[in-house]
């Protein structure tokens, strides 16, 4: 899907990004670096700015100061459509399929910014190979699918944009444990095929098992970053995120 060249240059970079909702200061001097081929996970509690990070990447929220670079070029002033064209695709929180459109039409919407040529069919075939279940259900209304199936369509829909980086907002949310595991396996599979993934996730335990690196966001600030292996053994993380999960 993409040549996973190990260039030292970041594919996606936040440089001192600040965002505001009115008077509310959400992201505070945030810096991220995501290299091509990585799975990077963003951890943090509720209302710490995780979803705002996703919205800032996709252009739904504009930073008040700071720069967002994609492939070395600033994108913070571009429209969402332009960002999708350049290779950013979202998997939205709670999947957000178009419920009264068929699975096939949802996949088509994923490729909205592209011409419908042989490349479209090629990508469709890839998605069907990755998710045989999606192929079976292609003419069904997506609102009638189970949560796990919807997640497959949501990921397939993102792949249809032929992106270079997929942003996933809470991919495990609302899924049964079996489907959570399945979803993380899929994420690993597409990453091995070369896809870069930036993922926001509450389920730190699972996320740190597949991620290469992680950032921890607390009330809008990056308080910790490092390799997933380090994070898994970091006592602060264990208590705050992994422990929390064991209690819950």
């Amino acid at each position: 899907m993409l040549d996973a060249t190990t260039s030292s240059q970041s594919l996606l970079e936040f440089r001192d990004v600040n965002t505001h909702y009115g008077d509310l200061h959400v992201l505070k001097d945030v810096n991220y670096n995501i290299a091509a081929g990585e799975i990077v996970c963003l951890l943090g509690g509720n209302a710490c700015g995780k979803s705002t990070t996703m919205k800032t990447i996709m252009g739904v929220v504009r930073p008040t100061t700071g720069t967002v670079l994609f492939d070395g070029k600033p994108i913070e002033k571009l429209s969402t459509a332009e960002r999708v064209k350049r290779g950013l695709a979202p998997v939205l929180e709670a999947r957000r399929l178009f419920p009264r459109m068929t699975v096939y039409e949802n996949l088509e919407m994923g490729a909205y910014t592209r011409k419908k040529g042989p490349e479209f069919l090629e990508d469709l075939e890839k998605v069907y190979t990755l998710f045989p279940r999606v192929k079976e259900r292609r003419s069904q209304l997506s609102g009638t699918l189970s949560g796990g199936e919807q997640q497959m369509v949501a990921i397939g829909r993102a792949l249809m944009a032929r992106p270079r980086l997929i942003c996933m907002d809470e991919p495990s949310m609302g899924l049964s444990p079996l489907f959570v595991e399945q979803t993380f396996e899929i994420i690993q599979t597409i990453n091995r095929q070369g896809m870069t993934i930036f993922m926001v996730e509450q389920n730190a335990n699972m996320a740190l098992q597949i991620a290469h690196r992680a950032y921890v966001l607390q009330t809008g600030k990056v308080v910790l970053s490092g390799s997933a292996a380090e994070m898994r053994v970091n006592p602060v993380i264990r208590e705050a995120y992994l422990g929390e999960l064991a209690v819950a």
Partner: protein
Amino acid sequence: MTATDLLVQQIINGVSLGAMYALIALGFTLVYGIMELINFSHFNVFMVGSYIALYVLEAFGISGQSTLMSGWPLVGVLVVALLVAMVGCGFLGVVIERLSLRPLRGVKGPSAMITTIGVSYILFNLVLLFLGTDTKNYPNPLPPLTFAIGGAVLRLREILIWVISLALMAGLYVFTRRSKMGKAMRATAQDPDAARMMGVEVDRVIMTAFFLGSALAGAGGMIFGLYYNFTSFVIGYSAGLRAFTAAVLGGIGNVPGAMLGGMIIGLIETLSGQVVAVRWTDVIIFSLLVLVLVFRPAGLLGRVAPNKS
């Protein structure tokens, strides 16, 4: 005419009126489905459409009961009048959206809706000012060809109205099912945030909805003239209100709902005039609306709006 013949006759008339209401109702529903906005300027876009078609017909020398033309030339002129009215109204709708509604995008509350009421008055007064208060006679260019169904009469006019309406509704259906922009419209109506994330430019979708809805109202305006043989600056309010009722009755935001609602209102209008009395028509229409909304708040074919987070 026997009672049955009268009934058949009023059903024929009701279907014609219903088709007209359905065409106008579609404009309300397309815009509402995407923006959750009730566009009151639509009333008078419809009225302007009936004037545009009238002037095009007159420009071709067709006025009054003239049977100046027949056969293909007549079909050609009718098609031209229909297209000019539709394209003219389509652009009028786009201009209204661009000038008065786009600056209000993202403003919460009823400001956009109130604005459409204002625009409606502006259109109304412009027509009043430049075209006068007098009722204009609409030409009846069709040859007096009729078909008898029992004692009831099916005129060529009805067939024309049915053909135009069916063709336009089928066209709209195919557009929303098959075309890329049509799919983007459906996606935006179902989940605007997700559609934007797919790269859909929502402003263009809104513009398309205004163009299509207004163009259908333009066709409705021409049908009004052909059906009643007159047009006037006041027609937007009576017919527009009934069409709006049709959209709500069928489930606003729902395309088949608008068509169904239009047909029901058209049939009630002619049948209640026949069976009860004309002065009861509005009472019956609005009582039915209230009843339907009590038991099905989202309208006959409407869905209860999903929780949008």
